[in-house]
């Protein structure tokens, strides 16, 4: 099977305007992935599915990842001429990496028995622009899994035929797999509450649970 760099070059030749980036995976598993911009994701997926050398006809796994806003420190080396001598300086810059949500697709080829090729799509932020392209039109196996990602992470898949909650009930409003999710304090009724449940119940029903 081709390397990810070769696949990337061939996609760029075939899909005009597609912005691709290889996300390295430093761990021992050595499974790097390919970040696709949401505008061209569907075209890239169709190319990967139909290309004769790849034939990625099987989308095994679809999942979401939540990356909240994070403060990162970065070391920058720069050279400056001080008193006529060029010296090297090191500066630590604190930056805030903006938060985003990510959809990850693991693709295999059943005919050629190769894989995985890992595709990623990222949303612009975690609040009001949480859209990525649905790949269900290419692989049916994404249908329930994208619904699950929508349900648990709140990513909206444009072009999905039936985007509804799948595991949580329809009236539920939050997305439980996000890192900043706070569980409701009235989720559980116990006739004889104790421990942390009692604490939560007391906070939620201050008049009923007085001792």
């Amino acid at each position, binding site marked *: 099977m081709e390397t990810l760099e070769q696949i990337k070059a061939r996609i760029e030749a075939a899909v005009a305007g597609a912005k691709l980036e290889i996300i390295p*995976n430093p761990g021992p*598993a050595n499974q790097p992935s390919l970040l696709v911009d949401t505008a061209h994701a569907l075209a890239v997926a169709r190319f990967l599915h139909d290309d004769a050398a790849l034939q990625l006809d099987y989308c095994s796994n679809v999942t979401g990842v939540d990356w909240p806003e994070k403060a990162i420190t970065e070391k920058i080396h720069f050279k400056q001429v001080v008193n006529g001598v060029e010296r090297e300086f090191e500066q630590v810059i604190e930056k805030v990496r903006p938060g985003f949500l990510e959809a990850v697709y693991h693709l295999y080829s059943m005919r050629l028995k190769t894989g995985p090729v890992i595709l990623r799509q990222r949303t612009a932020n975690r609040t009001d622009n949480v859209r990525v392209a649905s790949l269900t039109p290419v692989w049916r196996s994404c249908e329930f899994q994208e619904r699950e990602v929508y349900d648990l992470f709140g990513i909206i898949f444009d072009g999905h035929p039936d985007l509804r909650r799948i595991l949580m009930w329809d009236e539920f409003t939050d997305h439980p797999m996000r890192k900043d999710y706070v569980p409701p304090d009235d989720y559980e009724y116990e006739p004889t509450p104790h421990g942390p449940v009692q604490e939560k119940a007391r906070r939620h029903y201050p008049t009923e649970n007085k001792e």
Partner: protein
Amino acid sequence: MIANLDDGGGMEHPGLPAGAGAPNYELRPKAGGGDGLDGQVLEVSMGPHHPSTHGVFRMDVVLDGETIVKLKPVFGYLHRNHEKIAENISYLGSIPYTDRLDYFCSLTNNWAYTLAVEKLAGVTVPERAEYLRIICAELTRLLNHACLIGFLVQDMGALGTPLMYAFREREKILDLFEELTGARMMCNYMRFGGCRADAPPGWLERVAKVVDNFPRFLDEYEALFTENEILIARTQGVGILPAELAINAGVTGPMLRASGVNYDIRKVDSYGLYGRFDFRIPLGEHGDVYDRYMIRVLEMRESVKILQQALRDIPSGPVINPKLRLRGLRPPIGEAYARIEAPKGELGFFLISDGSANPYRYRVRPPSLINLTILEDMCIGHKVADAVIILGSVDIVLGEVDR
């Protein structure tokens, strides 16, 4: 009275496409059409508490007479957010939770998870442990397939007796598991870098006895079903799944191979030591319920072959990598996706490590859930009684579907 159960309830999201969740069928499609029928369709909620749904699972079925027009599966009754729980505890702490995913096959769940962590952390496994894992996984496959066929024929009206035959064999295997791991079903046996404990003295001989007797049970079992007139009438030509659709919909396991696609992860990935074993992959021709039954019988016979080879070749030695710290394992930053051929299909685990003691992201790729994607396609046009059999042939466990 026709209730529109499918209007999406109270879900309101500003960004949803218009019409999401709206019914995509007409409630009275051909009222007064010239066939003498009023064309009224009926929406029936099958489940969640129904013996044929194999757990708490619901199907919203729209019927025209007895024929299925539309079928929407409804999940989530057993949802406890296993993934969130696992992200808040250590890598080691998740192993007992994986037992509860597919509670029929806890040992294969253990294996898939430990395989993913081994990939993530770059851990090697001693050879004896690999053999023990293969023995456990193939015994699990035997009991899963035997019981599944029991449940399937129970859905067709053979109440009790065939299932009890399967449970008798299952109990023999569960006794072996109890001796090895301490528990019948919630085994919690495998660890990163090997297995928790070596087999007790004489255990392998007792496994060999059960394995050698298993083909006789299969012959007896097959004599009941394979040429049974009722089974043939109810299953042949029912719930046909074409190979192209099966691949596109991500169907895996015996379901996929019954449609004639030669894809078994034991052969494709050769994870563990499966590359050393001599076994064949049975393939179906028609992709109907009968083929799915037959594939499982043939797979059990192949599993017996694998078990006999494993019991013959198992070396002595350690069963766990002694250099590994199990508690407080901190894999390097990175991610890994590992998958195995579980009895129900491809069971995968996707882990992201941020270098801390608990996974940043932990995802289970459940074969039962994804095999249900095409349930509607298989059921449309069949009678409502056939939906029960088609669902039975998919082989779902709700602990894994809902997680």
